[in-house]
């Protein structure tokens, strides 16, 4: 309990520090409504993808194929949105086409999740290798589907998802919060959630306790796939296009954000609340630096530094707690 709390409190302190520093450096711009809104448009993409990564990490696995899944799912959506009817047809702007495209895209993401689950649960391939292979394979399928080109030009309904707001709250933010709420519900309020945490700490003992480990793994990677598919909706809508290699740099960032949020690299521990704070910290740094006109790449470096800093602080606290325990 002490350990979990302490990670959360370190995060809170870092978050407050990030706000104050960015405020101090950028002046009132940072605390403006406009800046908060733009942050709220940017955070959800990485946020939903991080949820997809997090659930795999909780089972002491990893899902390297989330970005490739999102791209494939987004490409399928984009193909349906742009290629099912001739451009002059009225149907191409129908909201029902958007619904159909999204559902098909999500179905693709679910199928990918099923395949990942099969590779990991049934064939017993380690998650990192199974999803690495899937990442490369799916990237290839996306390339073949698109010939390596960008598919762009969606209907206003589709664009609204990524770019409109509802009562001042950007739609992507609403989607992210819904996903985070859903994830939190699964982890804290369903038998599956308890099993995920238990499995992540000791799959053998779970097996001997009558937990159907295969089912847990299948569901984990299907949920991970669904989140990837939802991220795809936000991504293609915001970019107004889909492509085989969008967002590849997000992959390692999702691991970074999850670990920063307190998800244990060894599995079994991690909460959605920590993850949200971690995403907010990363977004604050990014937006603050952006306002100061500092390169995005400096943001990357700073994110890496913050991660190592938090891990070191955690290590020092752990060591002290251990010493107290021994004494």
């Amino acid at each position, binding site marked *: 309990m002490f350990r979990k709390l302490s990670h959360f409190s370190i995060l809170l302190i870092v978050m407050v520090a990030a706000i104050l520093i960015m405020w101090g450096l950028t002046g009132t711009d940072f605390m403006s409504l406009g800046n908060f809104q733009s942050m709220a448009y940017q955070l959800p993409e990485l946020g939903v993808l991080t949820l997809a990564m997090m659930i795999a990490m909780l089972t002491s696995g990893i899902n390297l194929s989330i970005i490739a899944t999102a791209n494939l799912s987004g490409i399928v959506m984009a193909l349906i949105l742009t290629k099912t009817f001739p451009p002059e047809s009225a149907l191409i702007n129908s909201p029902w086409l958007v619904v159909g495209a999204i559902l098909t895209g999500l179905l693709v993401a679910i199928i990918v999740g099923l395949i990942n689950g099969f590779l990991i649960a049934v064939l017993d391939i380690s998650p990192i290798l199974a999803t690495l292979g899937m990442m490369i394979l799916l990237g290839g399928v996306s390339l073949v589907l698109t010939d390596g080109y960008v598919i762009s030009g969606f209907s206003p309904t589709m664009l609204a998802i990524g770019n409109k707001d509802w009562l001042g709250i950007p739609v992507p933010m609403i989607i992210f919060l819904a996903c985070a709420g859903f994830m939190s519900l699964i982890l804290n309020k369903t038998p599956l*959630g308890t099993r995920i945490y238990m499995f992540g700490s000791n799959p053998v003992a779970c097996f001997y306790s009558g937990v159907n480990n295969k089912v847990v793994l299948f569901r984990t990677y299907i949920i991970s796939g669904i989140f990837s598919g939802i991220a795809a909706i936000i991504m293609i809508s915001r970019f107004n296009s889909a492509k085989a290699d969008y967002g590849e740099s997000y992959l390692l960032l999702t691991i970074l954000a999850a670990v920063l949020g307190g998800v244990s690299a060894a599995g079994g521990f991690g909460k959605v609340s920590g993850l949200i704070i971690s995403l907010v910290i990363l977004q604050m740094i990014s937006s603050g630096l952006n306002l100061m006109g500092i390169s995005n790449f400096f943001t990357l470096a700073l994110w890496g530094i913050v991660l190592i800093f938090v891990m070191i602080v955690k290590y020092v606290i752990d060591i002290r707690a251990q010493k107290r325990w021994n004494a």
Partner: protein
Amino acid sequence: MAESFLSLKQVSKHYVGVTALDKVDFEIYQGEIHCLVGENGSGKSTMIKIISGTEEADIGSWIEIEGKSVHSHKAIDAINRGIQVIYQDLSLFPNLTVAENIAIGQYVANHQKIINWKELHQIAKKAMARINVSLPLDALVSEVSIADQQLVAICRALTHDVKLIIMDEPTSSLTKREVDSLLNVAIDMKTKGIATMFVSHKLNEVLQIADRVSVVRDGRLVGVYPSTELNDEKLTVLMTGKKVEYSRYVARENKNKPILECIGLSRQGEYKDISFKLHAGEILGITGLLGSGRTELALSLFGIHQPDKGQIKFYGQEVVIKSIQDAMELGIAYVPEDRISEGLVNIQSVGDNIIITTIDSLVNRFRLLDKNKIRNSIQKWVKDLSIRIPSAESPVQTLSGGNQQRVVLAKWIATSPKVLILDGPTIGIDVAAKFAIHEIIRDLAQKGLAIIMISEEIPEVFNNCNRILVMHKGMVVREFDTDLTSQDEIGNYVNGTY
């Protein structure tokens, strides 16, 4: 009188708030086979640490080696003075060959940089020759048996100029035949003037060949005895400080139809032609050596491996148990032998460990977890089984062995099983806590549960069971009514010497 190799004089070790050792005098002669026995937490592991130099004794203690007092006794000094420890986990490298495992330590110790593979094989062969064993030098350690791995660890110790080998719980994972060959190795080392110290928490085979036995309890040396003067009962009294009366359990008279019946159950390479009946309210004992098929039979009843032949009947109906889920559906529960890795999710909370088996029933009508139901369930089992915990949130690993086992029992009793299979229910648990666990088990039987108790400790099954099946090499060699036999007779069947 033999000459002393190592002696501890007035050795104490205090950790903050805890006295691990209190003025212990302890001596090992050159070329002696010595047993050090004591319960968990008696101080025997602290003694190993001090002898091997990984911990330093308090001021006022002193250590003599070959009659001379030594000032500093760090790990490297201990090795240079000819002391080697073989830990319970053996500390081998599974991915390296037997030869490398034996010889690599010498290269490191000599600060050599380059390996000469021929020379490395020579070193390994020389070590093997010292104890007259032959191991496949080019096989990976992960490919050889546990017994051979133990020999690898001994050979590795012998590459140093060794005078004392300490073996921590060496026989716990060996079959009878493997133990015998280990004992022969110890006798062989004795003829070469190498002393062996066996460390154990229970009386076992090594006692037969030991010269002397030292017993420790609560950080003090209780006494040193010639092994011929000791028997099981006497040793238990020395180790626990209590006169232990094993009370016998007598089951209710039971003329009902059996709950579980096995007819001619066989599985290739594991067990053969097993038939027995199990009634409500009964505790059926299954005993046998490691590798006798006792655990494998249990795993089949729990749906983990399917038998090749034979029938399982449950309340008279033939059933096929294909998975653990099937077994649970029928009402069969299994407490595994390895509590730490199979029984519990050690780093998660006591509460989650208790509810994991029944979690699907602890939900509300939206199929979401019901906090109240969960809390009530945890509280009920913590109270019923008197589990002592700071809070339901505490990780299981902070509990004592006895309390951990209660958590395992709790999670299975919570499923209201008809048949409870206990595999090694009190392994690694102190004597007092052991009896408490036995009380719980008897109580469950009295309430009508049918229980199978698998144990290699004959007193445990003898005193708790109505009937005992003795397994040997995969077969049931004899069924005993415990009223009509003795522990010695059972022991003969266990060892196949009938």
